[in-house]
């Protein structure tokens, strides 16, 4: 864990509204584990004020500008422009200053005894699954089910294919792959019982459906959640998610930046508990 004051190496649009950004990041190729994230400060001013969390897409080295220098160690993020912070990020160019806190959080943990792995990604939720795939392909047969609204939301899949991952696509409008939700693909695959392990990241409705399918098929599932975060280090307690056994009278919260963002599905509460409303400010 470190707070790096560093620079952007490259920042490119890869699909309308989706970008990938390489950042100079010494130490990350050793320290970052699949499923971990960073808190990125996109500029020195206080707009936006808080850092933004991003999953690690991959780590690696690129050759230095001159042969006598050692290669540059980088971290790559893939992001979707959704608001002020990501709008600012899109403007960044090679050489611009950014601050990088990380790598943070728990990562995915694969069970070596299970030979087949299934990855399920929804839209930008694909990001943390790529680094995981680079590890899993070394020992297992890996399939990726990826979904999005339309073909523009399906990103970086050729890179998964290059790793030897078997990729199946579903789009809601049918512009690429099967028409419908990505969860249908998972359901079909799990129809015949077989030993596998599922790793998923994406919007909450997708994760809800994936959880139901895996629970029915008795397949183990790890999910990476996207909570709102202020600190990323366990200090503010703003990022909590509901843990298994959570009730209104006995709330159980898990800190998603330190105990997560990757959780075993069984450790989470998948019942939608009614929100409690209280008046008065609470700090």
């Amino acid at each position, binding site marked *: 864990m470190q707070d790096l004051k560093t620079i952007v190496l490259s920042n490119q649009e890869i699909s309308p509204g989706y970008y990938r950004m390489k950042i100079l990041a010494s130490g990350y190729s050793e320290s970052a584990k699949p499923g971990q994230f960073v808190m990125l400060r996109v500029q020195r001013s*206080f707009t936006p004020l808080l850092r933004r969390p991003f999953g690690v897409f991959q780590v690696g080295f690129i050759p230095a500008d001159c042969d006598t220098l050692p290669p540059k160690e980088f971290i790559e993020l893939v992001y979707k422009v959704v608001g002020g912070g990501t709008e600012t990020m899109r403007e960044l160019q090679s050489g611009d200053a950014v601050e990088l806190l990380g790598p943070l959080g728990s990562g995915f943990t694969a069970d070596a005894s299970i030979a087949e792995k299934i990855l399920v990604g929804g839209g930008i939720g694909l990001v943390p699954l790529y680094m995981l795939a680079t590890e899993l392909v070394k020992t297992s047969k890996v399939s990726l089910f990826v979904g999005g609204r339309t073909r523009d939301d399906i990103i970086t899949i050729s890179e998964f294919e290059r790793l030897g991952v078997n990729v199946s696509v579903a789009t809601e409008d049918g512009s690429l792959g099967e028409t419908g939700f990505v969860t249908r693909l998972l359901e079909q695959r799990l129809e015949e019982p077989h030993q596998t392990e599922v790793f998923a990241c994406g919007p909450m409705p997708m994760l809800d459906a994936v959880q139901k399918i895996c629970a029915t098929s008795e397949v183990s599932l790890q999910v990476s959640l996207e909570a709102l975060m202020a*600190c990323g280090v366990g200090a503010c307690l703003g990022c909590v998610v509901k843990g298994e056994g959570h009730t209104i009278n006995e709330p159980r919260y898990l800190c998603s930046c330190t105990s997560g963002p990757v959780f075993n599905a069984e450790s989470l509460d998948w019942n939608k508990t009614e929100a409690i409303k209280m008046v008065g*400010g609470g700090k």
Partner: protein
Amino acid sequence: MSNAVEQVLKPKLAVEIAGLKLKNPIMPASGTFGYGEEYSPYIDLNQLGAIVTKGMSLNPKAGNNTPRICETVSGMLNAIGLQNVGVDAFIKDKMAFLSQYDTPVIVNFFGNTQEEYGEVAARLDDVPGVAALEMNISCPNVKHGGIVFGTDPQAAAAVVTSVRKRTTKPLIVKLTPNVTDIQILARATEEAGADALSLINTLTGMAVDIKTRKPRLANTIGGLSGPAIRPVAVRLVHQVVQAVKVPVIGIGGITCAADALEFLIVGAKAVQVGTANFVNPDAMATIIADLEKFCVEEGIADINDLIGTLEL
């Protein structure tokens, strides 16, 4: 020779608050620095004037429903709901870590009733390594229709009086800004036995998602912190300093040495840094270094010579 030069170049940053000797006037604000440990990979806790912990209650508290935070212009709203491990677990599990450092530990605490406030203070009273208590009175009194202790001069005085009886440690009372006349509250808590006052806690606020038409916090209302509140905080510290004799600790939107200096000039003896820690885990280290630089540049040998020098 080099020693003499050093003395000229190294201004004195040490301050004293209610008998507490601080290396410098910079400390974290409660709830923004966890129990210290969370930020120890990023900042040397020995550098700090003090460490202020997350607010502690008699029993563990699970906190509010989510979402608990949202960003606003130059600030953030939070309704964490005072989630904490409870005072006994704090003493057992968190104090050992904090005691390693040569930095005074100030334990922030609160209660749901006057009795609970007293009980938490009593349990912390004989704990070695606890240098002082900071009492958060921005909490609703569940026995009296939920009126916030810190907004009612009588309730505030009563709860401070009852805590004062249960502790021998220096007692800092943390004031809420959500009142009409802060000077009345400041005097009431000083008379009830506060050794120092700290302010401000967050300003109550609210934000709405215009698409879903729902409040952006599950709790509807939250506390505003960050640079947006600084001018309000500076004004309130200015008013409190004029109303009381006890030392005052300034809090609210501090991100850099210049921000901290505003509070010191107005008369705060020390300051707390909150939301800025989230943005910059080493914000306090930078502030301390830059305070020193400022003193050198301005020819100030001792920071105490600067405190309360507002020109009107």
